[in-house]
């Protein structure tokens, strides 16, 4: 195995938090394949304490995440990625945005968001289950799009 993925060396020491370093500057790269050098070299299990499945492994990537204001103060006690997520979600964002903005693997973002929600730091709004058949909802989206000029 000469593959770069076999490297277990120490993560490159960057003192800049990922979301500060590259916070949505410009369109994302077109590249459809992997090996993005900007992705954290930390192996995912280091961030999730060895778990790879979120508490609720069905958490949708479009699920909306918002910091629970009741707990914003105690977020000071959180470390690293946990605190970054709580800071980022001051306005509602999706799990996918958490992953993209913090340069986390989508699976890692799912685990961390589920953990923080279970601990009461985040409020999560998941898509409603009967959505594709909800005519009122569909009409609302149609009207919203029609308003785009």
């Amino acid at each position, binding site marked *: 195995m000469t593959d770069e993925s076999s490297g277990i060396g120490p993560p490159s020491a960057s003192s800049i938090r990922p979301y500060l370093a590259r916070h*949505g500057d410009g369109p994302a790269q077109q*590249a*459809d*394949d992997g090996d993005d050098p900007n992705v954290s070299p930390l192996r995912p299990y280091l961030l999730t304490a060895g778990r790879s499945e979120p508490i609720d492994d069905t958490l949708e990537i479009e699920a*909306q995440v918002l910091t629970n*204001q009741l707990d914003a103060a105690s977020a000071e006690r959180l470390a690293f990625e946990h605190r970054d997520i709580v800071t980022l979600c001051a306005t509602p964002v999706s799990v996918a945005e958490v992953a993209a903005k913090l340069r986390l693997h989508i699976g890692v973002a799912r685990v961390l968001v589920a953990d923080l929600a279970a601990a009461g730091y985040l409020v*999560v709004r998941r898509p409603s289950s009967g959505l594709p058949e909800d*005519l009122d909802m569909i009409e609302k989206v149609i009207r919203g*799009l029609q308003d785009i*000029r």
Partner: protein
Amino acid sequence: MDFKTYVEPTGREHRPPTPVKIVISGGFGVGKTTAVSAISEIPPLSTEAAITSVAAQIDRIGEVPAKTTTTVALDFGCITIDRDLKLYLFGTPGQDRFGFMWQDLSRGALGALVIVDTRRLDDCYPAVDYFEQIGLPHVVAINCFDGVLAHDLDDVRWALAISNDTPLITFDARDKLSVRDALLAVLRRTRDHAKERMLNRYRT
């Protein structure tokens, strides 16, 4: 209750919007990211998802180097409909060897837009097949890069072998309003499906 971890909010504003999504699909380099950028209110974001061992087996032999773990970029954007509703656009990863991810992307989606380049028609087959299989309302949209379609729409429909009730449209992935209209075509299809299902339920 759809939001399991929902805590009683202190104010009305402290309530995340309901997310809905449309899947943007098609072959590699067909204009998916272009279409998302044209209409998204945020610059399209990209995130990584892993290819599972199951997916690794789908790799066509010879086409993919002997690399068993890799990641795939997932592009997406969003449009705020109103304070309580946000529409997400998720582009499926370009190559059909990443098809396994479509299940995740399609679950709960309102519908799908399959973008087609007439120079590489067969690139969109996996997408069309998949959405037909799972019964997700979809529209096939030919991306006319120069605004002109070099073929007859009926010829393209024949070549694609898509069913007669699947809408086939032309659009320009670079143009915001054109993308908007393509998404509206998807939603009208979604609405028709929802109505049909409702009628069927009344009949039985």
